[in-house]
């Protein structure tokens, strides 16, 4: 945001003469719009990408017609279709919660984009508690999901909502613990600080250190579960719960859930990139933001790859993975990271 303000001050004539309120407010608005654009654009590309990825894994072509080149406009066409569809609210639904739920889910994903460090200066707000903020705000989604499941007044939706709540809360714990292994050596919760700690060549990335390497996998699995992707997609397990918490949703409200899912996929990939893959660092022939997005997209691809390869776990097995496997591992990792940090401090 500081960067935006600088650009505006330097490039836009007469910006200094504006009232001070506007001087502060305009960059905020611009940053918001940019974020919103990103949140809207990322799913568009990701959904098309997922369709193509899955299609080629399954010996199909996927969308080929809309827009000409490899059906690139398919998602846009689908979005327009969803916008034009009739808005149906079940008669027995809790109308207020039913309408509110998709917005809450979407807002959770959207708000987290604020602290993503796309580049050295491309960050809306470098909060000094950035990591904590992401962990907190992205949990807003689960509230929305439970709202959706409850308000639909549908047993499948309720099942989906309950499963989602249990799953997301369970996986949040090992994930956040594993993130701590990065925070401990850096000594800061700021996203930029974490990225800066990984400067100076590829091998300074946290993924190449033993403790944080293991933490990376814990975070990857945990976040995969938090965004309800296969093999952890039990809240919307189509073969069991029809569509889980969004069974009763259609039209644009459904699209919000859909967009939020892909926005969240990108979000958790970006988080993992920031924490373990050196963020915007990369060889100099490409600018930082490009590296950042490339790395995040690569992780998104892995998520898709898993989805189109693996079957789905059962509820109890899912809980087993979280509480009996990931949680102990992450505790050990935190201990190891702390000991390592102390030892390094003590060493001459």
């Amino acid at each position, binding site marked *: 945001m500081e960067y935006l303000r600088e650009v505006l001050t330097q490039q836009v004539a007469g910006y200094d003469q504006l009232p001070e309120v506007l001087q502060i407010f305009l960059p905020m608005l611009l940053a918001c719009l940019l974020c919103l654009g990103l949140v809207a654009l990322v799913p568009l590309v990701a959904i098309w990408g997922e369709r193509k990825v899955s299609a080629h894994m399954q010996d199909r072509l996927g969308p080929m017609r809309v827009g000409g080149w490899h059906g690139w406009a398919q998602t846009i066409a689908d979005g327009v279709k969803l916008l034009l569809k009739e808005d149906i609210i079940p008669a027995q639904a809790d109308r207020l919660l039913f309408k509110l739920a998709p917005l809450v889910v979407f807002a959770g994903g959207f708000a987290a984009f604020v602290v993503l460090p796309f580049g050295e200066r491309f960050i809306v707000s470098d909060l000094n508690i950035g990591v904590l903020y992401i962990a907190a705000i992205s949990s807003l989604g689960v509230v929305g999901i439970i709202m959706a499941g409850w308000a639909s007044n549908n047993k499948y939706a309720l099942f989906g909502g309950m499963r989602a709540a249990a799953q997301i809360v369970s996986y949040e714990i090992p994930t956040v613990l594993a993130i701590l292994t990065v925070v401990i050596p850096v000594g800061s919760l700021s996203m930029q600080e974490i990225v800066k700690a990984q400067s100076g060549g590829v091998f300074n990335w946290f993924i190449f250190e033993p403790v944080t390497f293991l933490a990376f996998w814990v975070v990857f699995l945990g976040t995969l579960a938090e965004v309800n992707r296969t093999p952890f997609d039990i809240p919307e397990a*189509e073969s*069991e719960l029809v569509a889980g918490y969004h069974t009763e949703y259609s039209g644009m409200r459904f699209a919000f859930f859909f967009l939020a899912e892909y926005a969240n996929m990108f979000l958790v990939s970006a988080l993992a990139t920031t924490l373990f893959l050196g963020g915007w660092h990369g060889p100099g022939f490409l600018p930082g933001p490009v590296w950042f997005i490339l790395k995040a997209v690569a992780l998104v691809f892995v998520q898709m790859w898993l989805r189109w390869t693996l079957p789905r*776990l*059962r*509820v109890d097995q899912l809980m087993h993975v979280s509480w009996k496997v990931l949680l102990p591992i992450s505790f050990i990792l935190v201990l190891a990271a702390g000991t390592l940090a102390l030892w390094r401090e003590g060493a001459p």
Partner: protein
Amino acid sequence: MQVEAYAGEEMVLNMGPQHPSTHGVLRLELETDGEIVRKVIPHIGYLHRCFEKHAENIDYPGVIPFCDRMDYIASMNNSLGYALAVEKLMGLEVNERVKTLRVLMAELNRVASHLLSIGTYAMDIGSFTPFLHCFREREKVLDLFEWLCGARLLYNYNWVGGVSHDIPEGFEAKTREFVTQFEPVIAELDKLLSYNKIFLERTADVGIISEEQALSHNVTGPNLRGSGIGWDLRKEEPYCGYETYDFEVPVGLGEHGPLGSCWDRYYVRVREMEQSLGLIRQALERLPEGDVHEHIPRRVRPAKSEVYDRTETPRGELGYYLVSDGGLIPFRVKVKSPCFTVLSLLPAIAKGGMVADIIAIIGSIDIVMGEIDR
């Protein structure tokens, strides 16, 4: 909202008749306690067309298209059973070419049917890609059938005393080509799905059918063999000259959990496809010359008698009980559907499992509602 509604601990969940994984229009009433299923009550009949009443109002050959529509996934096998029963009633013997063609088509159809079963099972467990891989292969078999008799699903191929069409020129070569390219796909399927850790976790300890239960509920076909009983009518009561072919009967071994689990049943189907490919090869090799219409009677009019005849379809033993009063139309046609008998076991094996297990069990017993409801 009433308070009484929340007094009980259990929630009744109505699964189906419109549900992605009930394989048609099966409706299950589940009494659930959280994720645990306390009780399952299947409700069938949503696809009931009263096949048996139809059959009592139409002449013997006219019943064959109706047979096709019972188990629409394996029509060739369904009409074969009926044709054989009528032939037995009439004391009709068909020539070798017809027998070989029937075996060939039955086995091709078995492959197609098992592919569908395996593919949809993968989807039930949450894996989408094997489903499309299986359908890609199934499509090739359907193309062959289309070339053979013009239909892709409901063939009306096995007639009383013969078959509707002789194979077209080049059919043998194409079928050989399919068999050759399909064999490696099974190995690929093993890698992608059968031995996948998650897939094993989900299926290898679920839905155990014991030997005793299987016999008492007259479970047949791959479901019975999954419980470790090597019973196959093609071996035990051969028809169409199956005794002259060389093939094995795969049974469940309980390699990855208790014997008779969902995985065992699933894997019996995979192995059966291999055996079917062998049978197709042998049938193609020996295909004798002959006229496929040679023994088709001008008028099907069996003497007063009755017969219960059963054949091995991809889903198990399909029995036809025919009663003739000497007229042109059957007096009674009763169908014993293999899916019907295995579905009656569902409440017993699904009790105490989780909601997700119900899906795994229904997928593994491979039911077709068209046959259950008739």
